[in-house]
């Protein structure tokens, strides 16, 4: 075993395989959750037959169906970019998983600049969307891609500013470090140290800003303008079919999982839960927290209408950015004072 | 037949009120020929008086309801011909105006000769006339002078003919009779008036 783990390339291969498996599986689970939860929000039953019970195999059946579909590339499309776009979108989220700690030791690579890397890599997903929109040679796709780009620029800033608050409080950019900082006792009740996640340690506003900006990054309702099926048909996805559509589809749900895991790690204490050994239960705890966030995201999707482009921009620049800056100032002041 | 609610005695005040209203609107519109049968006030105006009549009525009847043409022709390809023997072939253009307080509604009517079916456009007076005039233009071939965009509304580009003219046959029915004709009732303009009278 040790021979295998000591070899850099062998270890890298194992890690990559694990990442792909974890992300793919969770994406399928999130898709299933979306189908089933959405159905129940709407007084429907949802998937029922596939897999024998509760329709658990519905995402797999859908994936198989998509694989059999004809792969259509529009004649006027920029073929190389058109083909590369879904891969870029999907790879971006794979890249983020690398730094998410599932337990103190179960992390692919605990980078010193972990969160910085995650935000940079996560934004690449939008690049894939822009590529798809531009290369499809379709006006609806183009508008969808442009909307995605505008949205990225507007919401990346509050997203980063919200994270900076956490980084200041934790004093590190390493993801494991951030979790460990939340495992430290925040205050003492008698002789018992009470650890608190950052969301309860004055980062509530940061958490809300991060959630909102995250929805925009993921193009989820109420910020699903790049797709906006009632306006832009399917936005940047209009010309995609078959396997490439599946990749975008997976990327969307992989993105939901990855971003939710980020929120859990940054604000909710990640793999840490007081009283439970993190080394054993870490992955379960993180998945539990992530599920709550995913549930919220799905809930928003099936409840709210969509905002308009100018409202989206106005909200980011007039409210979120100033609020995030204020939050940052308060956090920094408190950090210096105490 | 039961007694008509419109010629019953208790309806007399309503009828009088209608007559008054009709006379008043006719006076406003400068029309000397008006009817108010069945609760429908209809004012006939001259072609020159078409726009002035609308302008005069606009303050009282601001709601533009519709505009439509009628093809009065003796020689018809579809349906029944008109009854009047001395009818001169012509187009009639009607517009319906209404108010939005007490519910008065007036139909203005103008006759156009077939060889010179042109009329001043209503669009400056009632903006809503635009689509209606386009429809009347394609359906009857009536020309509305000064219309901003007198192109086909419903019909595809390159469509020939004016479908609502009485001379325009329903081609699909020429090829194959409508299956409904075998039923108890016969259709307008079929040759067998006795077919339906069995009871």
């Amino acid at each position, binding site marked *: 075993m040790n021979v295998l783990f000591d070899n850099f390339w062998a270890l890298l291969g194992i890690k990559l395989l694990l990442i792909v498996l974890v992300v793919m599986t969770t994406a399928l689970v999130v898709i299933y959750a979306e189908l089933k939860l959405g159905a129940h929000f709407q007084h*429907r039953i949802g998937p029922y037959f596939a897999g024998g019970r509760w329709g658990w195999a519905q995402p797999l059946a859908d994936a198989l169906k998509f694989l059999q579909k004809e792969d259509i590339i529009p004649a006027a499309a920029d073929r190389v970019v058109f083909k590369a776009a879904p891969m870029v979108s999907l790879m971006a989220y794979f890249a983020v998983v690398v730094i998410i700690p599932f337990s103190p030791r179960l992390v692919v690579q605990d980078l010193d600049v972990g969160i910085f890397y995650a935000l940079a890599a996560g934004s690449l997903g939008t690049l894939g969307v822009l590529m798809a929109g531009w290369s499809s040679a379709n006006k609806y796709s183009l508008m969808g891609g442009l909307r995605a780009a505008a949205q990225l620029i507007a919401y990346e800033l509050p997203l980063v500013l919200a994270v900076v608050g956490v980084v200041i409080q934790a004093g590190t950019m390493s993801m494991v470090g951030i979790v460990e900082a939340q495992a430290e006792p925040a205050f003492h009740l008698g002789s018992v140290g009470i650890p608190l996640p950052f969301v309860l340690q004055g980062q509530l506003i940061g958490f809300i800003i991060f959630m909102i900006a995250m929805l925009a990054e993921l193009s989820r309702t109420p910020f699903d303008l790049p797709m906006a099926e009632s306006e832009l048909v399917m936005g940047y996805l209009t010309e995609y079919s078959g396997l490439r559509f599946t990749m975008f589809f997976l990327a969307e749900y992989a993105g939901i999982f990855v971003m939710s895991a980020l929120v859990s790690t940054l604000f909710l204490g990640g793999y840490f839960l007081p009283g439970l050994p993190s080394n054993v239960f870490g992955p379960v705890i993180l998945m539990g927290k992530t599920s709550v966030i995913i549930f919220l995201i799905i809930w928003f999707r099936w409840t709210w209408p969509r*905002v308009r482009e100018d409202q989206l921009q106005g909200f980011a620049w007039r409210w979120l950015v100033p609020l995030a800056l204020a939050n940052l100032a308060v956090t920094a002041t408190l950090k210096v004072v105490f | 037949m039961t007694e008509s609610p419109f010629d019953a005695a208790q309806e007399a005040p309503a009828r009088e009120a209608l007559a008054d209203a009709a006379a008043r609107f006719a006076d406003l519109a400068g029309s000397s020929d008006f009817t108010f049968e069945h609760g*429908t006030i209809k004012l006939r105006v001259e072609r020159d008086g078409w726009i002035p009549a609308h302008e005069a009525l606009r303050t009282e009847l*601001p709601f533009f309801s519709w505009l439509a043409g009628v093809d009065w022709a003796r020689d018809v390809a579809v*349906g029944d011909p008109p009854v009047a023997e001395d009818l001169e072939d012509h187009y009639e253009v009607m517009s319906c105006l209404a108010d939005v307080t007490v519910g008065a509604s007036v139909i203005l009517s103008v006759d156009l000769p077939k060889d010179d079916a042109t009329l001043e456009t209503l669009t400056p007076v009632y903006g809503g006339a635009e689509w209606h005039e386009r429809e009347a233009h394609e359906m009857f071939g009536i020309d509305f002078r000064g219309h901003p965009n007198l192109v086909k509304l419903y019909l595809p580009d390159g469509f020939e003919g004016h479908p609502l003219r009485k001379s325009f046959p*329903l081609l699909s029915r020429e090829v194959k009779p409508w299956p409904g004709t075998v039923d108890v009732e016969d259709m307008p303009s079929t040759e067998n008036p006795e077919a339906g009278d069995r009871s």
Partner: protein
Amino acid sequence: MTMDPRAAMHHSEVAVSVELQTPDMTLNLGPQHPSTHGVLRLVAQVDGERVESVEPVVGYMHRGYEKLAEVRTYPQITALVNRIDWTSGFANEIAFVVGAERLMGIEAPPRAQWIRLILTEMARMANHLVFVSSYPLELGATTPMFYALHERERVLDLIEGVTGGRFHPNFNRIGGVKPAAGGGSSQKKLAQDLPKGFIDETRFAMEKVFEICDTMDKLIVGNEIFRGRTIGVGVIPPDQALAYGVSGPNMRATGIDFDIRKVDDYLPYSEFDFDVPVGENGDCFDRYMMRLHEIRQSARIILQALDTLPSGPLQAKVPRIIKIPRGEIYVRSENPKGEMGYHIISEGGRGPYRLKVRTASFSNLSVLQWLLAGVLIPDIIAILGSLDFVLGDVDR
């Protein structure tokens, strides 16, 4: 870049760089587009997200009813007209049948009129329930659709129970309504003219309808995003509405207090107590609220009509072959979408010499070109949806 003052006003909100002169893009929305409700086509000149001008193209669904009516008998035309606006089929028949009756000098017996009125209000309810649920869909909210359509199904079931048809009842006869199947002679008073249990089921359904209206109030009307997307968007001023013949809830949203049900007597509405909701601003939000309130008012009317339902025959005496004496008449009715009217010109035959069909959606949509100049692309959809049109009603 030339633009009218309205467009410039919009520009103040989101300043598009005016110095950057870029050629406008022609965006073709429809005839196959998810939000054009069928086959409407909008040719829009857009500058980024900004719409410079829109040219609506209609006629993809033109079925030539006015020509068809000239080769049909009067009883056959009732079957044609309820296909014009298929979301409220029953309401379409009323004005035509009443027009034919008035030309013949007959009147439907009270019970038939009451049944007509109940079913007309149900058609209005069904239409408005589709609207209040599908309009959020245009703004991106999918769930209300399922809630409201569930209740609409109840209403359609009731209509089906009486008439046998959900969308195209074809239930009105000249001189009354169709007797129940197997009911025998139309002149007899029939015990089975309404299906068994109809009244109780209707009362129950009306309770549910009130409930769904409250649910929509909570779910949609109070939503900040919904309000942000609709308030102040697509404002039609009253004078513009009148000049373009915009009618029904769209007109009332502009603040004009006018309902044909209150001034005409095509159905005995004067017997019932109901309010006409009137808006203030004429924007998308007001248009939405008009319909939501009208559902409640329709339920009120139906409950009152059930209490006062007279007994008696369903049909006036009419000749076996219906021939209408010479004459012409214009009868209009307050349809769910606005003023629906029929101008019948009879030359004494079995069918009309000319039948002009005035449909609400046609006039409501004709204001579109004026209304859409200078808005944003998402607003096209928001405004389009709020006008509540059906392409069958536009193209006839």
